């Protein structure tokens, strides 16, 4: 799980072009949206595409995003349980 968390942090930084952020800056339990990293709705779309492309997970209901993208911990658990590739 720790490896997956690190992998997700690196992917988020790359996909969302967070130039000033390194994986160590993202706390596992910190909120990704709003406070924390301060991501927005366009970032949410980017992350949904990321899950589909890299892990074969389709998030069909955007409302699920609130739970899935709550934090790195939540995201890593969701990916570990649902990934198809």
């Amino acid at each position, binding site marked *: 799980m720790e490896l997956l968390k690190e992998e997700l942090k690196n992917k988020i930084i790359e*996909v*969302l*072009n*967070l*130039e*000033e952020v390194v994986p160590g800056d993202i706390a596992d339990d910190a909120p990704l949206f709003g406070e924390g990293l*301060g991501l927005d709705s*366009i970032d949410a*779309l*980017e992350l949904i*595409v990321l899950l*589909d*492309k890299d892990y074969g997970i389709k998030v069909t209901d955007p409302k699920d995003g609130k739970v899935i993208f709550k934090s790195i911990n939540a995201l890593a658990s969701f990916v570990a349980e649902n990934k198809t590739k």
Partner: protein
Amino acid sequence: MSKVYINAGAAISAQATFDGGFLENAVINRQDVFLPAIEPDYKAFISPVASRRMSKAVKMAIIASAQALNESGVSVPDAIITGTGAGCIIDSEKFLKAIIDNDEQFLTPTSFIQSTHNTVGAQIALGLNCKGYNFTYVNGAVSFESALLDAIMQIELQQANNVLVGGVDEMTPYFLELQQMIGHAKSDIATVGSVQSEGAGFFVLANTPTESTYAAIEDVTLYNKLSIAELPSFITGFLRKHHLEPSQIDLVVAGNNGDVFDDYYDKAAHLFRNYAITVQYKQLTGEYFTVSAFALWLASRIIKEQHIPEILKPHAVKHKAIKNVLIYNQYRGLDHSLILLKRV
């Protein structure tokens, strides 16, 4: 009709034009076929959170426009008008490449949103919270002049008291390669075509002069296709419309770029040979669709400061007062434009 004044201007180019200097340290690069823009420290102007989705063109335009607005004292202009030949081509390529690489699946929104040509004007407006008239012109090598024409009309027809107008273009390695393949850009310094570059030039135009005013814009005109034989009458006709003869022009700013279409510029220079100094500038900036925004920045500063940078003087000339300035540009025999400036 209201007169139109250039009250502020800023340029980002292959020279250090953003530091407030006036080409004192300019260098002519005769080796490279692409001259990248010397970019400001973006972090000093745009937060990393805001800039992470912005391409080079957007960032250059936002910073050049911020500098021009700051100089003019205008916080939110009545209108924002942008000219760009190739638009946000970095993100256009990214988006198209993603379509191909991923077999038309997994398309993400960011590069698509950022790939549209009017992203530049939109991002400037978002940053300023400006809800006024916002228009983008994409007309090849007269993209900036088209934007300028609209800006002038907005002020002349009293639709706006002040307008932020500018031109911007960025280059990518692939787009440069395509330009080289069709012979428009030099592949090496000995081949045909022109040296390519990129940059941004933004201005605040207004109906009232201020202490910072550079010059008045009398007019701009565009013509798509002209033969060399037709050029003199195109120029003299434009001047006569403003009750001027070639002998009353003090300075011509010509867009020679070293390609085979420079004959047009030679013809224009011949028209003014006994009266005006002709300066060329693309040996400093290279060629790009909106390079005439740099020409306007250059001509404006020359009029305001009554000084021609040493590096641009064709020979050691002592010039008279510079009152009337004509900017002439064309690209590959097409997209001819004339801009007439007057000292205030």
